[in-house]
């Protein structure tokens, strides 16, 4: 049975489930100090003075360092991009001159324990001069608004537009235009493990090691080397076991810069483990966009054009390396969805405010774009009296139209948009659910069905940089595969797993391509000293790019192993097969050599190798998929709304996804279910709330509500398997998809359930209080959608 595609149980689970995982907080080094950061109580204020003396006097405290002092050790971060209309911002490791959001680190106390360090924080006397708080993009763009970054000259950090055709003309000529102002509120990417890092400076060799709970050790190494004035090869960044990332751990954070600088400054290892409050205050947040969007359709339901203006609240800093454009530009990139849209204009603004910085979160931009487009499609169907599935089927890009260049310029290399919708419709028993819905309504119960189709670009190669002119390359990854003299295989990657199961899936790829036994393959990642140059794991890239590199390296080794075996067995390599850890002569199964015997020969050198062959059994290969490949799915949610309590219960959830060739169906299913859980949370529960004065009101998990198993339905996952025509291995990314479709499907289901009340839903999360206000609004007979 082939290993690629096999439902292999995750090899890492035994470790995690028995508490044997090793996270940054589990690491301790001799002479290690603990750092606690003093965090600004104000959202926007000048720092007048800092008196750290009393803190330094406390027994057990080694140092209390301020922004000005650490500035001699580390430069401020600056996320560059040549995108027109973009203003970078400077973010120092500790605030200097002023603070820009409540929770920004102002000073660092180094002590023998975290307890002492926190006691000392209370003794640091900081005098602030409060500044007007820039609370919303509207306020930030108003004339005379205070500037978050004086040096940027404006609170608008970026503007961007994608235009195709004549969208205004399309709107004029269309039989129907539906539109609304949509709002997707601010979101936090809550990981089980809070952020944490530990830095150790070795003055003898002039080398710094950083262990960090990060998705991107490679990006961190490059970024930190520049900020700390160290050659890249004097920095090692290790991501040990990491308890979830979801995009939140894909940026370089000021705390990471600070612990490195502090370790070098004090000559002692320095550890910081964020508590939940710090994590909610300072980790990058997501979405927070207002979208004015209109969809123009013909009387028969054919989409003619789509027009949107998206304003994003990007918070206080443009994060390194993704910039403040990461979320909002993806919204306008993906708004047209998997539909044929001839005329399009999408405009984006990224506006700075005094809140925690905006960053990438599972799905990036697409949860928001899918919410908006799918809501408009449903409204168009309702206004035309069409079934929402029928209207979608009319507009989805068909297989014969692929590859298809979307109006924002993204090329869909492949896709099963129509098929996934049809299969989802059948899997959900759509007609049956509609009939149930009718019966329920007659009994005074409000059931709704919501459909969401999406397509996303995964495994993005070098042709599409993270942002135009970005200083980093995110399109390639490498794999080093080594067969040691013991015949066991180590495959090392620049990727960094934080829950995806790479130790299983990448081992499956390597074992099959090389012909090794699965249990003989060990995957190593997350350590810049242990693998080839790479960046890390984000953007649904690891299976595609890392898997591609693994295939190339494993194939190179297979060829060499076969050549060695052929030489030793005195047969032609063509007469050998290599599988399950053994090279065997075709037709003579008892004649063969194990991988261990072949490796033994490889390292024995010239005596046993074909003439001229280099000894060793190790290969490094890099892979660049160039454009990347399209991954798609349809989600269908069935919800019930209690119009009295305004409670929403998700009754059913169907996912029909196509991630190309499947490496491991169990893991694909797990990714889909986990993503849906986060998408349902986004639709119903999770919302970051700031007070008008910029104070975070959701600073604990009592107030920031993530869904629990009790709030989630069983998710039914159906796999379509159309291999990618453009990537090695045929893989497509699947890590983010669940979160992309779910908010839209749940939102549409709620709107569908509430049709008897004549209302639409344009704001997420659909909290009970919001639904209460919607349902209490006086009903109008005229449709709110008429432009």
């Amino acid at each position, binding site marked *: 049975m082939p290993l690629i595609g096999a439902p292999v149980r995750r090899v890492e689970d035994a470790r995690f489930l028995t508490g044997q995982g090793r996270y940054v907080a589990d690491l301790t080094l001799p002479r290690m100090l603990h750092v606690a950061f003093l965090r600004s109580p104000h959202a926007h204020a000048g720092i007048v003075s800092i008196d750290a003396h009393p803190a330094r006097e406390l027994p057990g405290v080694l140092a209390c360092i301020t922004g000005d002092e650490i500035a001699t050790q580390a430069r401020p971060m600056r996320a560059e991009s040549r995108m027109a209309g973009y203003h970078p911002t400077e973010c120092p490791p500790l605030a200097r001159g002023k603070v820009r959001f409540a929770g920004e680190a102002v000073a660092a106390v180094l002590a023998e324990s*975290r*307890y002492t360090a*926190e*006691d000392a924080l209370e003794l640091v006397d900081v005098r602030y001069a409060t500044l007007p708080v820039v609370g919303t993009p509207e306020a930030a763009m108003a004339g005379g608004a205070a500037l978050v970054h004086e040096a940027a000259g404006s609170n608008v950090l970026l503007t961007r537009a994608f235009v195709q055709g004549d969208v205004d003309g399309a709107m004029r000529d269309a039989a129907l235009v539906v539109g609304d102002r949509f709002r997707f509120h601010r979101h936090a990417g809550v990981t089980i493990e809070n952020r944490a890092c530990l830095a150790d400076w070795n003055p003898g060799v002039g080398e710094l090691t950083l262990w960090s709970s990060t998705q991107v050790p490679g990006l961190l190494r490059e970024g930190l080397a520049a900020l700390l004035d160290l050659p890249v090869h004097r920095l090692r960044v290790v991501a040990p076991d990491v308890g979830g990332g979801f995009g939140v751990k894909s940026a370089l954070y000021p705390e990471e810069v600070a612990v490195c600088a502090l370790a070098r400054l004090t000559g002692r290892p320095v550890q910081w483990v964020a*508590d*939940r*409050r710090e994590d909610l205050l300072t980790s990058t947040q997501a979405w927070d966009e207002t979208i004015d969007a209109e969809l123009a359709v013909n009387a028969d339901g054919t989409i003619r054009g789509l027009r949107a203006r998206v304003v994003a609240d990007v918070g206080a800093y443009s994060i390194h390396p993704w910039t403040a454009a990461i979320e909002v530009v993806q919204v306008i990139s993906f708004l047209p969805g998997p539909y044929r849209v001839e005329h399009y204009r999408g405009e984006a603004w990224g506006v700075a405010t005094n809140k925690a910085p905006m960053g990438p979160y599972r799905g990036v931009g697409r949860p928001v774009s899918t919410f908006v487009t799918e809501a408009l499609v449903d409204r168009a169907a309702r206004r035309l009296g069409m079934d929402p599935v029928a209207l979608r089927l009319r507009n989805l890009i068909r297989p014969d139209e692929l590859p298809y260049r979307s109006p924002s310029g993204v090329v869909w290399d492949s896709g099963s948009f129509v098929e996934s919708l049809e299969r989802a419709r059948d899997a959900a028993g759509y007609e049956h659910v509609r009939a149930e819905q009718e019966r329920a309504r007659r009994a005074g119960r409000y059931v709704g069905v919501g459909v969401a189709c999406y397509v996303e670009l995964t495994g993005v190669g070098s042709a599409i940089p993270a942002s135009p002119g970005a200083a980093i390359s995110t399109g390639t990854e490498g794999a080093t595969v080594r067969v040691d003299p013991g015949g066991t295989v180590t495959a090392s990657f620049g990727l960094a797993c934080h829950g995806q199961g790479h130790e299983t899936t990448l081992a499956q790829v390597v074992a099959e391509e090389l012909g090794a036994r699965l249990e003989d393959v060990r995957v190593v990642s997350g350590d810049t000293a242990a693998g080839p140059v790479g960046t890390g794991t984000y953007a649904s890239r690891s299976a595609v790019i890392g898997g591609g590199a693994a295939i190339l390296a494993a194939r190179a080794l297979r060829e060499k192993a076969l050549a060695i075996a052929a030489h030793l067995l005195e047969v032609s390599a063509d007469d050998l097969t290599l599988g399950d850890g053994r090279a065997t002569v075709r037709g003579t199964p008892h004649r063969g050599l194990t991988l261990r015997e072949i490796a033994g020969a490889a390292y024995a050198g010239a005596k046993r190798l074909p003439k001229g062959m280099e000894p060793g059994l190790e290969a490094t290969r890099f892979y660049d998929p160039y454009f990347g490949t399209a991954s798609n799915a349809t989600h269908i949610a069935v919800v019930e709304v209690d119009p*009295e*309590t*305004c*409670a929403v219960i998700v009754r059913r959830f169907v996912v029909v996804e196509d991630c190309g060739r499947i490496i491991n169906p169990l893991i694909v299913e797990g990714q889909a279910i986990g993503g849906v859980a986060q998408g349902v949370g986004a639709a119903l*529960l999770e919302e970051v*709330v700031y007070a008008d004065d910029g104070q975070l*009101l*959701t600073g*604990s998990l*009592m*107030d920031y*509500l993530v*869904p*629990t198993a*009790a*709030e989630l339905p069983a998710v039914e996952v159906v796999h379509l398997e159309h291999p990618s025509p453009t990537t090695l291995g045929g893989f497509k990314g699947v890590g983010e998809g669940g979160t992309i479709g779910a908010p839209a499907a749940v939102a549409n289901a709620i709107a569908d359930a509430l049709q008897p009340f004549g209302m639409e839903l344009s704001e997420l999360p659909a*909290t*009970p*209080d919001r639904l*209460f*206000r919607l349902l*209490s609004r006086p009903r109008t007979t005229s449709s709110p959608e008429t432009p």
Partner: protein
Amino acid sequence: MKPVKFDYHAPASLDEALALLRRYGGDAKILAGGQSLMPLLNFRLSRPAALVDLNRIPSLAYIEEHDGQVRFGAMTRQRMIEFSPLVARRLPLLREATKWVGHLPIRTRGTIGGSIAHADPSAEYPAVLTALDGEVVARGPKGERVVKAKDLFVTYLTTSLEPDEILVEVRLPATDAGAGFALEEFARRHGDFAIVAIAALVVPDGARCRAARLATAGAGPVPVRLRAAEQILERDGLTDAAIDAAAGRAAELVSPDSDIHASADYRRHLTAVLTRRALRRALRVAHG
């Protein structure tokens, strides 16, 4: 999220505990199940000089019936109450309420005394205590006193107990056979504190209602006894119209606050919805 330094004492008797409280002159905190106190300490919102841990005083955990009352030692775990046959028989409303308190691990540590002394207005036990006209026994330097539910809750997280008093016992009148009860709650997630909850008890008497008891959680700074709504039922019986009228009246009797989870208007609306639902279900329970 590390607490300020504090002394820790684990006395073996109540008298020792009282002496310790006196010694710290109001600067010590009682530790029961720790499910509410520990987060407050970690956030440094509570900064006592000492903790007096009641967990080593075995005599503080019991459930017994006495004089038509079910009496609970303050340190009785919520989980014990959930599975007590006595509670199931004699105080079924409390049993139902217990299932709404947090999650299993929390109920395993959390105590009835802690829940009531903590006085979170969104908590279930204070609502039940209020609905049933229960009382607590407090012991202090001057001996024991009995405090009625209506005199206990002052405002958010504040009771009329003195800092040197220990809540030692909770007393709830046992429910007569033939009574109906229900606790209707709306929370954002399973196990969360109530946005609003209504505890209801009715004693039907043919077409009439001999007694009705209603109290809220989550609809103001303290649990609210909805006496004027009860009176409608005691006057007009448990008809649909009377239940609707009582529900409408309930909404007028509360003055909830707004927070990030729910506006005052929505809480008021929920008070009516849940009162109606609780009464209807209580009536069904009474009719078996």
